[in-house]
């Protein structure tokens, strides 16, 4: 029987995942078959992709990549690994979006923020007390490298303006707008759409407070613009930014990034 085992094509007489593990990776105690983590062993079938791994063991970079690929659909994983995604602003949306995109397998991120972490950020932003005072770019980079040491990061500690936005985000497939102020959001969207013709933008509008989370939606108002949010819940006195709705919006934005990247992939395949 032909089985792909930890990235290598193998021919085996084993009939079950338990027998295969005993012969090929007796030190391992975890088994992923075609993207699914097994609870108990199953019979092998021709052409299966099997990854064995060790629970209390730090994998090599190659083994980690194999595990990551095995947990996603390989077609999605290979596209996301080649993607370059920008994030403008590393506050509540941006810091959590960066972590989510790295977990999803994005290969390269361009992160831009001028600010440093302060204690008022901790109600919703992906930082800890140990980060207070650090530039948000540096603090975010440290957290991301703890999640995936192989992720490529480009850091820009600066204020984004119409003049530097096309330079900072050059070569990005998608830029995520994660600013706080509405005029900054509008400026980033306008600048990327006008000055970066190959780049899409995923933006946000309306996520403050604690009203119904189901009001937060994903919309596609322009061909290269996606907007996530409820469109009305502005941050203001009496309606502050809180982690749950910020995270709902982050989930929408990260999923939109994956959907747009996969749509770009199928467009490229149609053209070639």
């Amino acid at each position, binding site marked *: 029987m032909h089985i792909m085992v930890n990235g290598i094509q193998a021919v085996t007489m084993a009939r079950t995942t338990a027998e295969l593990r005993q012969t090929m990776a007796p030190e391992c105690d975890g088994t992923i078959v075609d993207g699914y983590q097994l609870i108990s062993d199953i019979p092998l079938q021709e052409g299966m992709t099997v990854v064995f791994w060790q629970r209390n063991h730090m994998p090599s970079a190659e083994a980690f990549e194999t595990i990551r690929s095995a947990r996603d659909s390989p077609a999605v994983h290979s596209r996301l690994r080649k993607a370059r995604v920008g994030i403008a602003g590393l506050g509540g949306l941006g810091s959590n979006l960066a972590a989510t995109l790295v977990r999803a397998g994005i290969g390269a991120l361009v992160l831009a923020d001028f600010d440093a972490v302060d204690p008022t950020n901790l109600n919703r932003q992906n930082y800890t007390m140990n980060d207070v005072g650090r530039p948000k770019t540096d603090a975010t980079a440290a957290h991301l490298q703890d999640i995936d040491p192989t992720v490529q990061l480009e850091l820009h500690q600066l204020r984004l303006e119409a003049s530097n936005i096309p330079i900072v985000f050059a070569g990005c497939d998608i830029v995520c707008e994660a600013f706080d102020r509405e005029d900054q959001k509008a400026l980033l969207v306008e600048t990327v*759409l006008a000055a970066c013709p190959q780049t899409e933008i995923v933006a946000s509008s309306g996520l403050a407070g604690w009203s119904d989370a189901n009001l937060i939606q994903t919309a596609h108002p322009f061909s290269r613009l996606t*907007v996530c949010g409820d469109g009305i819940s502005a*941050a203001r006195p009496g309606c502050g930014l809180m982690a749950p709705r910020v995270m709902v919006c982050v989930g929408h934005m990260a999923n939109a990034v994956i959907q747009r990247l996969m749509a770009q992939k199928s467009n490229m395949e149609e053209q070639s």
Partner: protein
Amino acid sequence: MRVNGTEYGDAAGFTLDQWLSQHGYDAERIAVERNGHIVRRQNLAATKLQSDDVLEIVSFVGGG
């Protein structure tokens, strides 16, 4: 003129920035696409509207 799917008969003779302010839009908080192309805010005043224009306007509220 069609704006976000709704017909408006009051566009002729106005520039885009005039029409936007007459309809309560704050040019600093929106992104505007005219006939499929983004209009940068410095060009709003120089953009003369035509009766067959199609506008898409996205408004942003703060928080992130």
